[in-house]
């Protein structure tokens, strides 16, 4: 029996390692997204020659997303399409280009943290909505509009743990994703950042007690806490501010104003709040006020 469990665990971790996270009932969320209707006024909405006009004409778009962050960007092994808050915001943008977000005209491309800038630079994706923190250095290489979500780093620990802030974990090991900004912050706080390939692997190490906790954006942690109810909890105040934005190619600066327009419209008509409520709401996070957008350069 133990052996069988071990085999199952190896299988799960391997699936996780290849990015096809198969996690219980998380797949059901796919149907729960907001039904976003494609607009039909694209004939003269965009300036001729702009990237938006090109995309609207082509009727096709490539969108980069994460597939291992429940609530933000998640795609189970059996899901047709990803789900989560990033995806809902992406759908608003896609619909504004008169492309049906539910159709096959949208190519959802998985972008892990490492390949977000290269994919944008190579034109493999037109937009990146993949819990993409806005940083000055990233803005040297790619365009980042937004933020459409402001979150901060928190701590995920076992439900029976006494730890209630990152300060309790000085000198202890805390995991996150290899090469993520979160690891730097863990180190700055005096804990020891340990990197795994995906968040689900990091969660597994918290569950088996190898590391004391996991730290990254609170929204991501809340998703995992909801998925492992009773076993994990999110603790502590946020100890960083992450401005999550939309990535686009620097070669197409006109996209910034358009993205900000679509975001502003959704802040005003409640589309943004609705998207937040159905994706991140179930994990117990209150719908915040919409963030202030950065002006386009």
């Amino acid at each position, binding site marked *: 029996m133990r052996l069988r469990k071990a085999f199952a665990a190896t299988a799960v*971790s391997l699936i996780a390692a290849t990015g096809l996270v198969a996690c219980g009932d998380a797949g059901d969320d796919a149907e729960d997204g907001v039904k976003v209707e494609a607009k039909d006024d694209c004939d003269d909405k965009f300036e001729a020659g702009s990237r938006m006009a090109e995309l609207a004409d082509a009727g096709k778009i490539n969108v980069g997303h994460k597939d291992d962050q429940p609530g933000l960007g998640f795609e189970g092994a059996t899901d047709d399409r990803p789900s989560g808050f990033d995806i809902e915001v992406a759908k608003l943008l896609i619909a504004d280009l008169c492309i049906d977000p539910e159709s096959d005209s949208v190519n959802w491309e998985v972008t892990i943290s490492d390949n977000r800038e290269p994919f944008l630079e190579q034109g493999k994706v037109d937009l990146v909505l993949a819990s993409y923190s806005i940083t000055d250095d990233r803005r040297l290489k790619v365009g980042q509009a937004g933020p459409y979500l402001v979150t901060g780093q928190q701590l995920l620990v076992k439900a029976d743990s006494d730890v209630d802030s990152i300060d309790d974990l000085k000198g202890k090991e805390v995991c996150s994703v*290899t090469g993520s*900004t979160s690891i730097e912050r863990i180190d700055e706080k005096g804990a020891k950042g340990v990197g795994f390939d995906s968040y689900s692997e990091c969660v597994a190490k918290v569950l088996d007690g190898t590391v004391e906790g996991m730290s990254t954006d609170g929204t991501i942690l809340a998703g995992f806490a909801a998925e492992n109810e009773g076993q994990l909890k999110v603790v502590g105040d946020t100890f960083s501010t992450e401005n999550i934005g939309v990535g686009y190619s620097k070669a197409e600066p006109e996209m910034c104003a358009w993205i900000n327009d679509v975001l502003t419209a959704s802040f005003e008509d409640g589309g943004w709040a609705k998207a937040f409520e159905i994706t991140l709401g179930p994990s117990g996070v209150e719908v915040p006020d919409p963030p202030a957008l950065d002006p386009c350069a």
Partner: protein
Amino acid sequence: MEAISDNWDLYFRSFGYTVALFVIASVLSMIFGTILCALRVGPVKIMRAAATTYVTLVRNTPLVIVFAFFTFASPMFGLTFNFLDVHIGKFDFTEAFGAAVVSLTLYTSTFVCEALRSGINSVPLGQAEAARAVGLTFGGTMTQVVLPQAIRASVPPLASVQIAMLKNTSVAAAFGILEAVAQMRRFTNNFSSQRTEIFIFFALGYILLVLLLSFAASRLEKRWQVA
């Protein structure tokens, strides 16, 4: 360029982990590989069968799977490396490091075994027969006559095995160890505008280490050359 030039300490520390993983796993894999090889060519049938099965299984399993097993599956039935808690200066050798050393050792041993076996096959059968004829036991035959010659013949393939292992340490990046590749990914994440330079610097680090290793191997090969 500032990404690396402002952070030489992080750069060298990450290669420190790479070298530590390599040195420990290298020594252990040579020892365990030699034992495996002796079992494979030994006179006891059941041991021969066991060693052959082990080598066939592990050699044909991708290293990532071996790592995943010791990181995610084995803790489920109680096999952990929690007892490991060594801190030397800024280096921490904890559970993840233990799992990595064990994974690398078990995996590399099979290749060491096969490299040595190719060396043994190059020792004329008459040598072993002569050793037996003068009354040496199996142990004596192996340690006094066969292995010394076999190891000499195996230096080039063993060097290749160890060079491959040095590069294989990079797999540990995905399993909780801040070795060179993990550090490279931290740099590329923080300084995405300097990707090219970062890649080049880490590639150079590996090239330098492998060159040192090849140099040592070729010196050894020359020194042990028989006529």
